[in-house]
């Protein structure tokens, strides 16, 4: 059995859209002449994902993450390039392929709106041909992990967003897929529900060895779930590797987060490191990675430290820095052209 679960080579997905400026004149004009424009949603990306890996797709809105995910799930036909998921060509949508995957979209649902989720589970059992004993075991396991309880017997429309997402996940996993495509699964959920969903996804991956590909704008999701990230911006791959390495590369400095027993003069703080923020809760200083030990010693010696922690820069900051660097690099290329 090959260790590669997902293989993407030079994937392109281009759309033709018709542009029209606002106004009546433009509207009338578009009746006779439409101005086509090609949108390069994905523009030549390549990567491979091993069996059982957890990978986060990161990028700003419109970067091409969801398009890539939809191509991998067989919903979109690539404009060019080669895509394989466990040896299958996704857009052929063979039964064997569809039974191996699931796609959960935070903004779309498969649950039947006016019926209890248990009816969607039964429907999926029949469609995916899940044997009855396996269905019972899987459902019991999912009910325990997701704490579904009696939720499955209430009409979907009466469930809260968080409850619905838990049931969506259960419906998507009834057939025990080997590849999970998760597109913003925690969108709109409160913090505690995000943690529940995150913990469940991680537990599912560890129990079953399923491959997991996640897109999320919540960096906490990515940090908690994905040791590896693939960063896409404007349809182009700008980073593929370990999350820690990305942080080290973009923001090599460390953060010293201090809680102090009393007020301190700013110059005393600046003697330890660059001041990032100060507030009632404490002080955050930035220091070069190779000076962390010295900075910690100086802080303990010269400041009234109550508590001290050393952290990486927040992932949000790392990502916006990375996107800014990508944009600058593209600008230079375009200027040169």
């Amino acid at each position, binding site marked *: 059995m090959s260790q590669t679960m997902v293989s993407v080579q030079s994937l392109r997905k281009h759309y033709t859209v018709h542009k029209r400026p606002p106004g009546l004149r433009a509207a009338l004009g578009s009746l006779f002449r439409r101005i086509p424009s090609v949108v390069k949603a994905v523009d030549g990306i390549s990567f491979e994902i091993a069996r059982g890996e957890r990978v986060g797709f990161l990028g700003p809105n419109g970067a091409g993450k969801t398009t890539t995910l939809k191509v991998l799930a067989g919903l979109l036909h690539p404009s060019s390039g080669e895509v394989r998921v466990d040896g299958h060509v996704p857009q052929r949508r063979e039964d064997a392929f569809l039974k191996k995957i699931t796609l959960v979209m935070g903004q779309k649902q498969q649950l*039947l709106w*006016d*019926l209890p989720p248990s009816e969607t589970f*039964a429907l999926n059992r029949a469609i995916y041909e899940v044997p009855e004993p396996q269905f019972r075991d899987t459902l019991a396991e999912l009910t325990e992990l997701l704490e579904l309880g009696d939720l499955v017997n209430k*009409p979907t429309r009466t469930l809260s967003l968080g409850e619905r997402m838990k049931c969506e996940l259960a419906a998507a996993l009834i057939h025990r897929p080997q590849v999970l495509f998760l597109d913003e699964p925690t969108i709109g959920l409160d913090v505690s529900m995000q943690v529940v969903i995150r913990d469940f996804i991680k537990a599912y991956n560890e129990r079953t060895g399923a491959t997991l590909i996640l897109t999320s704008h919540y960096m906490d999701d990515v940090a908690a779930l994905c040791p590896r990230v693939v960063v896409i911006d404007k349809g182009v791959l700008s980073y593929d590797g370990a999350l820690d390495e990305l942080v080290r590369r973009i923001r090599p400095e460390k953060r010293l987060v201090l809680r102090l027993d009393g007020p301190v003069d700013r110059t005393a703080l600046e003697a330890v490191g660059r001041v990032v923020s100060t507030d009632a809760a404490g002080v955050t200083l930035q220091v070069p990675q190779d000076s962390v030990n010295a900075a910690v010693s100086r802080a303990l010696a010269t400041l009234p430290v109550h508590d001290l922690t050393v952290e990486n820069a927040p992932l949000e900051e790392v990502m916006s820095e990375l996107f800014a660097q990508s944009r600058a690099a593209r600008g230079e290329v375009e200027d040169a052209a």
Partner: protein
Amino acid sequence: MSVRSTVRALPTLFRVGFAEMVAYRAEMLVWVLATTMPLIMLALWSAVARDAPVGRFGQEDFVAYFLATFIVRQLTGAWVAWQLSFEVRTGTLAMRLLRPLHPMVSYAVENLSAIPLRLIVAFPVAVLALVLTGAQRLPRDPLLWGVLLLALLGGWLITFLANAVIGTLALWTGSSIKVMDVWLALFMVFSGYLVPVELFPPLIRGAVEVLPFRYQIGFPVEVLTGALHRGAALRLLLGQWIWIGLFVLGLRIMWRRGLQRFAAYGG
């Protein structure tokens, strides 16, 4: 999904589909009320035929014809064009495409699941028709009963397939509801829904013979009311199933090509 697997899944699909229809029963009732046009036509044409028959249609003939039309309409309804057009526009078709079951099978099951509820309405009308017009109009030839069953199935299939073809157009146009409106307007005129096809002038009747609309309503109604003899019924049955074949072929081609354009909007 193989045919065998699909057949195995059908009982659950129909059970869940029926549960959904029960949940939407109020909407279903509104649809039934919207299909009472044959009953209005019944009153209108009966009044016209009070003094003298219209063609071969006397008052009782019109009563039998339009009550049968109402029943056939209840049994051959489909709304997949609206479903498909909406799901293409919003991208929710994606959820169907992710399952190992052809979306057309799931649409067909959902549409067919409405029939048991509609039968509750159609059955009393059938009894009323028997009381008002007697059983002598019903076909006496056993073969014609077989033809009637196939004609009803064919009527539903043409309605469903035409809906599906028009819904699939949304993969190119973004929405195909207006095309469906045009189809419905033609259906109203040429299917025998408002006027029995026999009463059309010869020139228009010639066109109706080759169009698919009559096979949706008029043909099953004509068999049910004993208006057709064996030869004519079999000839029309052949015409109906040729149309079904053409629609299946057209749908297969359009579906395959259209899916390549599917943009799975949203999410």
